[in-house]
């Protein structure tokens, strides 16, 4: 699953540690989310969506939706 967490965090000029503190997760978890090596639980995804004030489908993109359409 792709996500825009890194972009949204950069817009707010937050460090990974600051975002981790706001979401009550570890900095390693933020790093794993931003590098798209870990997909969050539904509960964490809701927390991220609420923190950034964006709907979930603007932050997370399922791989099938992210792929360009077939010609």
């Amino acid at each position: 699953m792709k996500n825009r967490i890194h972009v949204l965090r950069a817009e707010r000029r937050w460090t990974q540690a600051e975002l981790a503190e706001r979401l009550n997760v570890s900095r390693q978890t933020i790093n794993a989310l931003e590098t798209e090596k870990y997909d969050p639980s539904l509960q964490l995804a809701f927390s991220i969506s609420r923190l950034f004030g964006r709907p979930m489908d603007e932050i997370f993109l399922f791989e099938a939706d992210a792929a360009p359409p077939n010609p």
Partner: protein
Amino acid sequence: MNTKPRLSPDAAARRHRTHVIVAMTLYLVTLLICTKLLKATPPGALQITLALVPTLPVIWVMGSLYRFLMQADELQRRVHLEALAVAAGITAFFSLTYGFLEQFAGFPHIAAWWTFVLIDLVWGAYGCVLWCRYK
């Protein structure tokens, strides 16, 4: 009512690491002292007590691990529990296999406490592999 502020997952991990380092140092020290003392201790209650003293720091580590897992975030918990499951599986398989070899094929006896060492080694090594995967 518990009014203690809840630690952040990073702070909980740091605290657990400190507890493990202190407890394992205590474990090694008590192990060395008790092993020496046991050589000159006659069988009885004192011998049993001395034999069990090194397990006290291990109980501390287990308590610290439980508290850490209760305060860890979902990825930390996943990594630790996945590594523990793999370590438990490998240790159980090794114990069973070697138990058969020891009983039926004349292999030398291995003390039961080696299972503790094996499970810890595999747990730590596999945990590192998992963290590298998420880096």
